[in-house]
């Protein structure tokens, strides 16, 4: 499985990663190698096998949908991690033109 530069660029864009030309080339080769390696999974017969997404055996773990109070100091600590604040709100870049 050899990924060409266009495909790598597409994957980088889906991944929201800005990459240099050098990186695109390096990761392109490495990802192709890794995909070649993991391709061996295709030889396993899984025709009657159910996929495993989790191993706990737990089903439908539910909780009450209620608002839980959060310590005000912890809220401030959390807000202070944001690169840009407007009062006590996290400022985001314009989403709609």
């Amino acid at each position, binding site marked *: 499985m050899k990924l060409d530069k266009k495909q790598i660029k597409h994957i980088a864009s889906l*991944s929201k990663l800005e990459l240099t030309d050098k990186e695109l080339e390096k990761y392109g080769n490495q990802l192709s190698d890794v995909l070649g390696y993991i391709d061996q999974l295709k030889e396993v017969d*899984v025709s009657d096998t159910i996929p*495993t*997404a989790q191993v706990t055996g737990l089903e439908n773990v539910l909780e009450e949908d209620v608002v839980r109070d959060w310590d005000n100091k912890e809220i401030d600590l959390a807000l202070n991690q944001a690169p840009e604040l407007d009062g006590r709100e996290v400022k985001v870049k314009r989403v709609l033109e």
Partner: protein
Amino acid sequence: MELNKLTIKEARQKLDKGEISSFDLTKICLDRIKKIDDKVKACITICEKEALEEAKKADEKIKKGEKSDLLGIPYIAKDNILTKGVKTTAASKFLENYIAPYDATIIKKLKNEGAVLLAKSNLDEFAHGASTENSCHRPTHNPWDLERVPGGSSGGSAAAVAADMCIFSLGTDTGGSIRCPAGFCGVVGLKPSYGLASRFGLISMTSSTDVPGPITKTVEDAEIVMGVIMGKDENDATTVEFKNEEKTKNNIKDFKIGIPSEYFDEKVDKKVIDLVKKAIGELEKKGAKVVEISLPHTKYTVPTYYIITPSEISSNLARFDGIRYGVRQGEGDDLENVYLASRGKGFGEEVKRRIMLGTYTLSAGYRDAYYLQAQKVRTKIKEELDFELEKVDCLITPTSPHTAFKIGEQADDPILMYLEDILVSGPSLAGLPAISIPCGEIDGLPVGMQIIGSRLNEKILFNIGNIFQNITDWHIKRPNI
């Protein structure tokens, strides 16, 4: 006796008898860190002031007669576990200044118990790696040979215990990240059953296999720490309540040990095989029954793991957007540009590689061929392990295919690095408990053996591990540093 060399059990006795104080013990560990960590580079952040304050509080409680297993015991936590008020960087430039607003559940439990947090330890960025070289800070060095890696991704935590900078440490294990460095550093590392201890407050990597666990000097100590950090947590819906009410076998003559032949074949260094077989022989001499078994899907564990893990990583790391926390990069008002630059410049090489691989294996047209196929093979791997563990009490294997390799030696070969997980990723995919215990040395470098049990049957690992450590002294050996 240098106090920093104590085990939890020894320190507990001395603290309770009033022979030593937590303050002195903490101070001595901090001094040890200061003295040797410029060589080992295990610690990212040292919280000296906070540690000494906590130690004083612990001493007051001990004086009042309070008793609990970890009261006043100094420890180190891997830097992908959230600690309120103390930086948590995950060894990523993206989080280089991040301070968590709350404690991870396991940190809260240790705090309630009175354990003393000394420092946050180095790791592969976001725990992506098997060598602790992929850190934005600096690689950690193996205390047994400073030119070699300590293993990873919990390399800082394992190196710190091996070099007696603390009494125990915490790591996280997704596909071997506690067991691999414990093996390379000659200490004990336990990956508990998935769901036994809360993941709340761990920086998520692969949510379906991530677990936190202890790295300690003895098996006994691992059991003590696990007893404190385990338990159902309302903040982690995958945790289970577990009380071991059945009496677990403790007589060596009753044990039946399975030896999976695929874990002892040509991919493993002959000298490692010999040492692990010798260790199994010690248990056999004492009366354990040993049977050879086969796990034919073993060769598919690494390819399965390296589809499932990057897939979950690409989803979990989507939260790092440069908006709510972390280092924002990118000029101007363009949102897309902020995402691209913050992530492109903030993440290191291996993290970007894994995000891209996972994005690809989940993308339209490829999901069924890769991700779904891997989930199905995961079922095969799990069923095979569960089936064999019904017939035997545990499996014993080497932890890693060789001893610690040199820093830089395989840094540019992702597949070679992924193959480090070949003996440890199976139990992770199956959610089984597994412990690495030192069982020998090759040219002055430690070798670990892995004991794998059935789900939630940690007790069998502790019992066999204890028996092994009672009849051997590999766990007492320490590097000369």
